């Protein structure tokens, strides 16, 4: 018997599991079918980047949070819980040298440049990107890699130069290895992890520094696409920094995103260290309910139910399967549904009403997800909880464009934390 079963192993699910185990649950289990999902994550934890009717990024988080509508997840769980949740997240990393995270002045947003040269607010960020803070007025040099088209360094550099009051220079160099696949992101990272020798026998970290060095002028910081190692990223970066006598930072690119993958790995390490059981690679294929309660869920390696499908029976369940992008919410031509427990997902009738004409318009589909009550329980159309022992966290919660608001990470952390507390409170 498990106390808490978490369905989904993203940031929200991991936070829920961790909180539950730390808060006294004896056995916690996470069903995480697709750790690959972290390839989409930038590793930056956005808490609140924008509020309606203001075009500039939010400065002080706690201040703006209070002004969000009552049914915003931050207000459902309450400011105090949000603070505790973020602190718990921060504590996972500060004390640890495995994957240092920064929170800078934790109540103020930080600004970074994106892989297309826009300025973007975020709140918590891995140390590997931190020298790239735009709200730090030292000159920057961006260095792209010819073999990696994810970051057009000169374009990004020139666009950033238009947005910041200091010099941004940019160049491209050859990454000192020939890719055997495209995109070569993971391949480059692995080579740096292992410090493989290049064709002429130079270790690749040194060879990379040799490529970059002639490009540097007086800039004290150098930004490169995020490929600097997966397991040994801190060692790779610090060797480059020593070699170049400059701070080195990474710029998150499109998929695959190494900072996100590192975050995922780190979270699973922590979970396992704390005794959480993680089932990787097996999705939930069936659910048994009795009245208002979920009795068990069954999981199967290949996604289809057979006789020896394993059943996970728990007192309480956390739905952390993500939104449309991750597959927690799915749509067919007629309607939209929540995949695992079939909770109610409000959506406009008629597919033509799901989208707007502009590619980045205010699309209703972006808000698809379950409605939750004050205890984060998914609710049916009438506003009453679908199940007594089910809570929803992270992107599977709908009703708001968390992407445009730049709050997905903070919402996942806060709701994950709050759901675990509320579930344990209930069960005890």
């Amino acid at each position, binding site marked *: 018997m498990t106390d808490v079963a978490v369905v989904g192993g993203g940031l929200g699910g991991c936070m829920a599991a961790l909180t539950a185990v730390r808060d006294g649950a004896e056995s916690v289990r996470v069903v995480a079918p697709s750790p690959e999902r972290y390839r*989409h994550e*930038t590793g930056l934890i956005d808490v609140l980047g*924008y509020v309606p009717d203001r*075009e*500039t*990024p*939010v*400065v*002080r988080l706690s*201040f703006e949070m209070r002004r969000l509508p009552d049914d915003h997840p931050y207000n459902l769980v309450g400011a105090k819980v949000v603070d505790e949740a973020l602190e718990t997240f921060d504590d996972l990393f500060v004390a640890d040298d495995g994957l240092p995270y920064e*929170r*800078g002045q934790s109540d*103020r*947003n930080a*600004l970074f440049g*994106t*892989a*297309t040269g*826009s*300025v*973007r607010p975020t709140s918590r960020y891995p140390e590997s990107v*931190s020298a790239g803070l735009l*709200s*730090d*007025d*030292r000159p920057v040099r961006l260095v792209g890699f010819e*073999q990696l*088209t994810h970051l057009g360094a000169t*374009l990004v550099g*020139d666009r950033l130069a238009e*947005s*910041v*009051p*200091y010099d941004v220079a940019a160049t491209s160099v050859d990454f000192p290895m020939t890719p055997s696949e*495209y*995109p*070569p992101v993971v391949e480059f990272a692995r080579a740096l992890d292992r410090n493989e020798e290049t064709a002429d026998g130079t270790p690749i970290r040194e060879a990379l520094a040799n490529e970059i*060095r002639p490009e540097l002028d*007086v800039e004290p910081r150098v930004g490169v696409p995020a490929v600097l190692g997966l397991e040994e990223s801190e060692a790779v970066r610090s060797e480059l920094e020593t070699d*170049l*006598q400059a701070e080195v930072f990474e710029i*998150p690119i*499109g*998929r695959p*995103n190494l900072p996100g993958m590192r975050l995922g790995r780190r979270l699973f390490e922590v979970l396992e260290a704390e005794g959480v059981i993680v089932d990787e690679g097996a999705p939930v294929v069936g659910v048994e309910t009795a009245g208002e309660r979920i009795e068990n869920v069954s999981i199967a390696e290949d996604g289809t139910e057979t006789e020896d499908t394993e059943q996970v029976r728990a007192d309480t369940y956390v739905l952390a399967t993500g939104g449309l*992008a991750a597959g927690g919410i799915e*749509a*067919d*031509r007629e309607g939209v549904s929540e995949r695992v427990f079939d909770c109610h997902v409000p959506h406009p009738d008629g*597919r*033509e009403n799901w*989208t707007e*004409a*502009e*590619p*980045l318009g205010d699309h209703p*589909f972006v808000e698809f997800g379950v409605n939750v009550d004050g205890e984060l329980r998914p609710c049916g159309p009438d506003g009453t909880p679908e199940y007594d022992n089910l809570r929803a966290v992270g992107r599977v919660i709908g009703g708001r464009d968390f*992407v*445009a608001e730049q709050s*997905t990470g903070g919402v996942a952390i806060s709701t994950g934390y709050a759901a675990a507390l509320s579930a344990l409170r209930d069960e005890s």
Partner: protein
Amino acid sequence: MGYTPHILVIGGGVLGTGIARDLAIRGLDVTLVERGTLATGATGRMQGILYSAARFADSPDMAKLVHSENETLREIAGHCIEDTGGLLVSHAGDSDERFESLLEGCAELDFPVEELDAEAVREREPELGGDVERALAVPDAVVDPFRLTVANAKGALEYGAEIRSHTEIIDVAVEDGTIGTVTVRRDPSPTGKPEVDDGRGEPATDGGRPGETGTRDDQRGDTDGKEVPGSGRRGAHAPGGLDTSPSLPDDVAGRFERMKDDSLDEIDADYVVNAAGPWAGEVAGLAGFDLPLSFSQGAMVVVDDCPVDAVVTRWREDDEGNTVVPYGTNALLGTTHRDVAGPHDVTEEGAEVDLLVDELSEVVPAVWDPHALRSYWGVRSWPEGADSEHGFAIYDHGEYDDCWGMSSVLGGSLTTHRAVAEAVAGDVCRKFGISRTCRTAGIPLPGSEDEQILDDAMAEFDVDSPLVRRTRRQPGQRGSETFEAGPDNPVVCECQAVTRAEIQDAMRDESGTALDLNDVRIRTSASMGECQGGLCAHRLAAELYPTCDSETTEATLDGLLAERWKGQRHTLWGEGLQIAMQNYALHAGTMNRKSESTVLLSSREADVSTGSDDQENEKSGMSGKTGGVSPSANSVPLGLFDDGGDRERSERPMWGERQR
């Protein structure tokens, strides 16, 4: 004979180019104008079936025409056709009567068809649905409308015609019951690409310079090679023209005004053939005439898999959503018929997409699985009151409007276009007392022997086919350049395996100027794969830089994303919607391209003191009072934001210290 009439053909679809070729082969002087690139009208938005006659067995005249044209096109344009064969299938419950009358009709007309029972059908097409009862194997084929049109145009060029794309008819003068001067406007930057002053500053087409109303002869003299396809795009001139002065009266003074605009030009032809397809009514309207045309719109859906080998058509009364056309690794589901008032009346609706998927997943259940890549719509036009949408008529304005000098062509189909062109060209020749026979059925289209000739013509006319992609970009075609991915040639679009060298090649056009991303997309198929451009659109854009400045690069990226969105918007469910959400998250979230771009002011520029929360947050939206720096609604003082706290920062290194 001495006198050679000069014929102006309006419209660069399959029919207009077919007419130009026919007339040129008969020895007439021909100028064809097309406002976009070739095949941008109905021709580029059709379903691509070379019809077999069996489909028309209940109207013997049309059946005979289609029968001979199907065979003729196979002979002269085999390189634009893929002989997939076709199946007309009947399901349990479908009208037996219709199928029987099909059989009878074919027998009466002596058409070679083969009847198959359910088992034989499934042997040929294992993916067909369980309800198929029987089928008729017919000589349908798949035709590439883009290549066919360009082959026609090239054929016309070879016989001395002049083809001008990006040239729009904007006025047709009528003087004393006769068609007079036709005014055209060349699009100086046909794809919306940035203006580039190439220093030539001279319109490359002809003598239509300001104030010069040259006769046809000196225009022709100026061009010297008529083979300046798409030449309207070479000269760089300020855009403008009629749009800025829409109320100009159509009188001499007004015409004079217009001639000051050097993107305008006049053509005095001896006869005008209006082959503007669904837009023929608008062109006739420029001369003050109406055309009796009917219109319908048709939707098509491109899916990500190809479950059939042959063109499969469900044969029943209702011909909505009844055909699956195989296109290499994709299949095209088509089509619908919705009456519309004209080419501008098209409304793209998800309901038509649903209908296609619903109807066709009964025929080929597998079309349900692959995800729909995109949908697009085309407009058919045919003579009002004709028996079928495939009927055609020559509308002589001398006869109907008492005005000598112009005929409009109504309707037709791609399959029958050569025969329609023959009828039109014969009619024109008769008007001038010329009795030369049509030879288009006997002369193979350019590229039949050596396909390179057609590949080159595609590049010359700047047309790319979504079917035979990247033909112009084969390795080795341009110097020793190769487009294979390699150490020096990274992949930019993973889904379609498009490399940097390919993108850069596609960015070059005849004048060496940069193109917009949509052209790059059409030429390389980059961004047309599963991710719908989400993962690569911005990377494609970065390849334009620094040839284009950053503003242009941004604008063209927006343009590409908008185009890709338009295509997928009506097919969003299942995996398609999942990908759309991932793309939204990447572009609106990771890249932050949804919000206004933020400009950071230094602490000196913005005097920041830590005040109350309210004040601070207000300041983040502050504007201009800071003096000096480009203040705007989206500038924020950098000092308000996280500066890294107590993070250690390295000092600025000494110059030279770094060099080993």
